[in-house]
């Protein structure tokens, strides 16, 4: 077959030429693709032509339409169509590219399906994030609301503890106190979870000794081990650097939660904390903390869920012993420190949690700054307490009286406090932030704006535990920010420190 005849054969099979009058009525057709009856119109082939035929004119002499899907009684085509104007007639040229277009169809199909799937995943992620944000905001508000009455309760329980109680009363109060501490712990956990999720929990980077952390753990759990008759062992490998740089409070929090969880789930046997070096490179070291127990173990199906807060809350609300939010906190804190958490468990044999955390190692042991000589504090510090809640006022007053402070005035709001400051001198101001008439922040602004009062130390006592509130207050120059519930000794320490600062 010659090239010419091959080409003409190919064109004959793949291209159809139709001529019509300007209304679309067929005058001639080679019927290569679509057989046309005599006297039929282009519009009879497919509605596609209905909107197109009227558009062809001497002015618009060539119209091109790629990839047109046409369906006739016998066939389905994907055509490129040209409509031309030629001396009062219309020429339609149909190019059959069905095979070409059909070959590209699966590629486009797959691409589109993948994109749609990715869009849906993004939407799901957005919804999950919104849900999480809502949950965190709820937790944060709830925690603030609960903190205030709890603070009052614990404050008076602490005062009552030091009063003259008989044995039975002291024992009962002990239970009330322990329950209160447990609620406080749960509230702190909830707040930490919400802070981590909101990205407002800042990690410290300070040098510390791992030995101090393990000592704290041993002290904390020795009584529990004795009571439950469980062996508690801490094993720190020799190559663990003595001094590390990291956040000891958060490391302690992770380990306390893991050990506490192990104790809760171990009726007999042993809880072991093993600390070893995962890897060490130049100034960096990764430590592996393994907490294993000989307890109930966790079913395989439950394992992927144990770090989920909703699962933890479910457990918390179950009639059996509450598991707390500890594991969720562990997972969040480990991730925040760019570490890893693993868990292995066998029902009836026990569970092993393994946490890897990166630290820096100081090149030389840092010298401790020389201890400053303790300054004697005049305990007749003149204190002004600005708080509108009667219970809070009473609590503060009792704590201070117990500590020997005898000079304290009360103001119910910022405005009243400013009037008192105008009349009398104070060494330290104890300030609640949530006040009527003039709130704590506005009061601080007015206080700092006056030359006479701008240096009076202020200790904030508040139920507002969010970092944003603290930041705002700190920007206005405060000596300490204590969140309710606080321990009496914390308050006293803060007042004394503020007073010392003033005396400098």
């Amino acid at each position, binding site marked *: 077959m010659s090239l010419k005849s091959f080409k003409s054969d190919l064109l004959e099979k793949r291209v159809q030429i139709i001529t019509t009058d300007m209304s679309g009525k067929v005058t001639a057709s080679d019927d290569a693709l679509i057989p046309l009856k005599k006297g039929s119109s282009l519009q009879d082939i497919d*509605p596609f032509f*209905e909107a197109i035929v009227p*558009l062809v004119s001497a002015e618009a002499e060539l119209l091109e339409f*790629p990839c*047109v*899907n046409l369906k006739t009684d016998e066939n389905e085509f*994907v055509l490129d169509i040209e409509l031309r104007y030629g001396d009062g007639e219309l020429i339609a040229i149909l190019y059959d590219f069905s095979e070409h277009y059909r070959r590209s169809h699966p590629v486009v199909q797959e691409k*589109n399906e993948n994109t749609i799937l990715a869009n*849906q995943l993004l939407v799901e992620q957005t919804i999950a994030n919104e849900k999480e944000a809502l949950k965190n905001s709820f937790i944060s508000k709830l925690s603030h609301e609960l903190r205030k009455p709890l603070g009052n309760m614990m404050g008076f329980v602490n005062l009552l503890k030091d009063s003259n109680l008989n044995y039975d009363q002291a024992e009962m109060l002990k239970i009330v106190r322990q329950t209160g501490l447990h609620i406080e712990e749960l509230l702190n956990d909830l707040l930490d979870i919400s802070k981590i999720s909101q990205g407002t929990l800042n990690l410290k980077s300070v040098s510390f000794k791992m030995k101090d952390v393990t000592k704290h753990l041993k002290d904390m759990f020795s009584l529990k081990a004795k009571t439950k008759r469980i062996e508690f062992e801490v094993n720190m490998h020799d190559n663990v650097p003595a001094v590390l740089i990291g956040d000891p409070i958060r490391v302690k929090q992770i380990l306390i939660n893991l050990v506490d969880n192990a104790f809760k789930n171990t009726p007999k046997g042993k809880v072991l904390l093993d600390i070893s070096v995962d890897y060490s490179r130049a100034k960096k070291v990764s430590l592996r903390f393994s907490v294993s127990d000989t307890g109930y173990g966790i079913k395989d199906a439950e394992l992927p869920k144990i770090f989920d807060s909703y699962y933890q809350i479910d457990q918390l609300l179950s009639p059996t012993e509450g598991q707390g939010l500890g594991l969720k906190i562990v997972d969040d804190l480990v991730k925040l420190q760019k570490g890893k958490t693993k868990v292995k468990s066998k029902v009836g044999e026990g569970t092993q949690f393994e946490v890897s955390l990166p630290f820096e190692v100081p090149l030389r042991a840092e010298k401790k700054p020389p201890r400053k000589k303790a300054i004697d504090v005049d305990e007749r510090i003149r204190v002004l307490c600005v708080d509108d809640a009667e219970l809070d006022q009473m609590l503060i007053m009792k704590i201070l009286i117990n500590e020997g402070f005898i000079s304290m005035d009360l103001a119910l709001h910022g405005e009243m406090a400013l009037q008192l400051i105008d009349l009398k001198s104070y060494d330290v101001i104890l300030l609640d932030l949530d006040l009527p008439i003039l709130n704590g922040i506005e009061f601080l602004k007015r206080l700092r704006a006056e030359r006479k009062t701008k240096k009076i130390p202020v200790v904030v006592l508040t139920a507002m535990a969010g970092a944003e509130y603290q930041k705002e207050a700190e920007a206005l120059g405060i000596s300490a920010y204590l969140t309710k519930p606080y321990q009496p000794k914390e308050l006293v320490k803060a007042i004394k420190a503020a007073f010392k600062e003033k005396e400098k």
Partner: protein
Amino acid sequence: MEVSKKIVLIGHFGVGKTSLVRRYVDSAFSEDYLVTLGVQVKKKQIELDDNQVNLIIWDLEGNAKVENMRSSYMLGTDGFLYVFDLTRPITFNNLNENLEFIKKQYPKAPVKIVGNKADLFDGNDLDEFLTKNKLEQVITTSAKEGTNVATVFEELARELL
């Protein structure tokens, strides 16, 4: 009186343009997504206010940007249906930009905005969603359940008469 009107459906891929046409013209629906390449044209004859109206419906392949669509497909368009998927924000995020382009290029052609897949929402949720996303002017449809499908085509057709 008999008239023919060209309606073009535009919007992202996978929003349900072909499903709306199938539901309206053939009273059929399929859950399977089959991508449209190029253009597919269907016709529906309706009676509207004593007029015989031939709706020539051009179902175009999906495209995120109207300006990237083949301009020859738009020739002689009487009205547009801009379709998006209520469950995929990416299909309506650039709605205003696309509408602006259409209005500039085809100032005489009215545009109806159609939010499809309404069956995936509960009644109250949908109202809340439309308010939140400032989509109050949108007509919501479900090609799957047939909700508002004829309404949307016929409201546009009535505007074209």
